[in-house]
């Protein structure tokens, strides 16, 4: 008979055993590498937060780079895209905030002391970065983030469908609407710009000849051209030529690849997937000019790496950023061109990246250089949301564009007042 079965397991013994197990569990947790500082693992522990990229292999790549870094133990939080912003912002308020995270340059993060000054690590190589990228990360002469990738966004079109419908590549918004009408057939819609249309918010402003804010950080988007553009967008939305209710948003090329539409607004990252699905039967063109005073435009989006200024390991995090996104050119090129296609922000890399030198990728780079507009660091997330509401209200809900823009002005001015006084 075993000793166990022989013993007298009353309630007190059971309670003691349970408490012992709990204590042992707690001690065990202290010894493991839980991704936070203070563990028993060798070196410093850093946590980086990324949104989930759509292209296969990206998560493994980021983790592979992190593993190659010997000065610290870097763990990666890979967050579903739609949850990323809310998770990042709430995490930054807590002690479990990541030491590093990717996001877009936003002045309120600088003003609230959430991101660290990275000028000292970027300055030595500043001239090799795209000047527009440096400008979009600079506040009062200090640089607050390192651009990892530039993502030009434009229209992708099916060459065969346009040829069959005898449609030329549109250069004006009116031509785009005509093309969408001609390309719409029983099973295929002419055009797809995302279900909520927010992916073209910025390009509509630029193509109407306006900007988001002036150099003095005043409203610059509320112009007659933008009003005209919004009216045209409403016409297009109700025309029946726009694909609505697609299963995936415009950042995913599935709708285009599956033949649900003839033209889709998407980003350069989708090129390899489109090439695989459609061969050479596709091309790209910029967002057409909306008014006579406007100009074709391309949104040069992208992602940048920031260091949490309130983190416990700011210096170690800066070292890692320098190592990966400044020194390791091989990884930077791999990140930019081995999964989806992105343009490396380093001029030397952008020029040498072989995958971007031919075909539609080269055309994408050309559009980026010729028509590209970059993020304005003063255009914050709250302002972005306010302008998204303009699209929701007047394009999808038929509110008067002037009234919708007035409401947006009130929200943006509230933000501007808080940020700049």
């Amino acid at each position, binding site marked *: 008979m075993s000793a166990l079965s022989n013993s007298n397991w009353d309630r007190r013994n059971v309670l003691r055993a349970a408490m012992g197990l709990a204590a042992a569990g707690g001690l065990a947790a202290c010894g493991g590498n839980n991704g936070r500082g203070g563990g028993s693992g060798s070196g410093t522990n850093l946590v980086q937060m990324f949104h989930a990229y759509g292209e296969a292999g990206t998560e493994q790549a980021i983790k592979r780079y992190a593993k190659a870094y010997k000065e610290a133990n870097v763990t990666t939080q890979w967050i579903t895209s739609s949850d990323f912003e809310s998770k990042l912002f709430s995490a930054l308020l807590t002690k479990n905030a990541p030491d590093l995270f990717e996001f877009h340059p936003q002045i309120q993060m600088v003003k*609230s002391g959430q991101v660290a000054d990275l000028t000292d690590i970027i300055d030595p190589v500043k001239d090799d970065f795209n000047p527009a990228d440096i400008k979009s990360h600079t506040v009062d002469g200090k640089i607050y983030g390192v651009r990892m990738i530039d993502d030009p966004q434009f229209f992708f079109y099916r060459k065969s469908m346009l040829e069959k419908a005898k449609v030329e590549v549109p250069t004006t918004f009116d031509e785009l609407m005509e093309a969408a009408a001609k390309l719409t057939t029983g099973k295929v819609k002419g055009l797809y710009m995302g279900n909520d249309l927010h992916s073209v918010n910025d390009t509509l402003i630029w193509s109407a000849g306006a900007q988001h804010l002036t150099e003095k950080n005043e409203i610059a988007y509320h112009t007659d051209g933008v009003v005209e553009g919004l009216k045209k967008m409403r016409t297009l939305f109700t025309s029946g030529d726009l694909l609505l*209710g697609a299963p995936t948003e415009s950042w995913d090329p599935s709708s285009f690849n599956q033949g649900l539409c003839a033209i889709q607004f998407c980003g350069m990252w989708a090129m390899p997937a489109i090439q695989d699905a459609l061969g050479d039967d596709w091309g790209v063109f910029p967002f057409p000019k909306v008014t006579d005073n406007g100009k074709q435009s391309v949104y040069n989006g992208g992602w940048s790496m920031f260091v949490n200024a309130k983190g416990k390991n700011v210096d170690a995090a800066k070292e890692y950023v320098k190592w990966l996104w400044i020194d390791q050119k091989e990884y930077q090129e791999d990140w930019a061109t081995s999964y989806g296609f992105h343009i490396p922000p380093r001029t030397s890399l952008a020029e040498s990246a072989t995958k971007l030198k031919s075909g539609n990728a080269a055309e994408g780079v050309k559009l980026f250089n010729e028509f590209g507009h970059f993020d304005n660091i003063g255009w914050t997330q709250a302002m972005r949301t306010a302008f998204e509401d303009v699209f929701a209200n007047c394009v999808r809900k038929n509110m008067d564009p002037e009234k919708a823009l007035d409401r947006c002005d009130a929200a943006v001015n509230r933000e501007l007042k808080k940020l700049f006084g």
Partner: protein
Amino acid sequence: MSTTTKLDLASSAPAKASSAKPRRGLRGSPTFAFWLFTGPFLIGLAIFVYAPILWSLWLSFFEARFTVTPDKFVGFDNYKYMLTNDDFVGSLGTFTVFAAFIVPTTWALSLGLALLVNRMRFMRAFFRSVFFLPTAVSYVAAALIWKMSIFSGVRFGLMNTVLGWFGVENIAWLIDPNPPWYWLVIVTARLWLQSGFYMILFIAALQNIPEELYEAAAIDGAKSGWQTFWYITLPQLRATSTAVILLLLIAAYQAFDEFFNLLSKTTWGRPPLVELYYKALGESQDYGAGSAGALILTVLICAVTLLQGKIMGFGRGDESK
């Protein structure tokens, strides 16, 4: 004889107790068990409910952007901002429409299901489980199924496929607010998710109705069916109905997941919690305004709940039946 035995036992008990060792510490306390079992929950309640509410109250009087430890006192500015914000006030209207749809339909459907299942003599447990099962599904998962499979706006969405058989063009159920098809999607999703749970409550209540009432009514000439349902069953379910409506109303106030996932980034169809998330918390990180809105909403829920309880007689006990 038996009385004598009892008396003997009763008289000997104190003597035995007095000879026993006195109990030590809290174990001797009659309230020890109470604190042992409720203590952890009370601590949890204090940490995760009351402390955040108090913190939220404090934040609502501060300029708390990008921080939850602010230092700039702004008085009632956040309350003024939220109460004059068209979107926040409009969200209360959205809630009213939603509650007007969902509360009566869920009540009627769950009661109907309960009556049907309760009358079944064959496979009752099976159908009870079938109707209850959706309760275990997360609102997020259900919203995604509704959005991507059933109410997808393209030709291979289930509803559009069915409509296509009758020559109806594809409908963008969730994208175009004119006409507001999105309500159909939202209400059906929630009906599917929660009717089973309330059905179980009604089944329990139905099984508590004394059979003698129906027998007495039959003797008095009442016809089974609509007449007994109206004059016996429904009045007997009054307490349960009141509780169900109260729970449904609170659940409607707390609606978030399906609205957030079905109607991302719209300016319509935003119930209060979604509006608070977009306008004050989330991406904008305005925790002061968000807290003010949350507290306004809390006061409103309490007021409506008390009013509804008073009108429907919640908590009056047996006489309310």
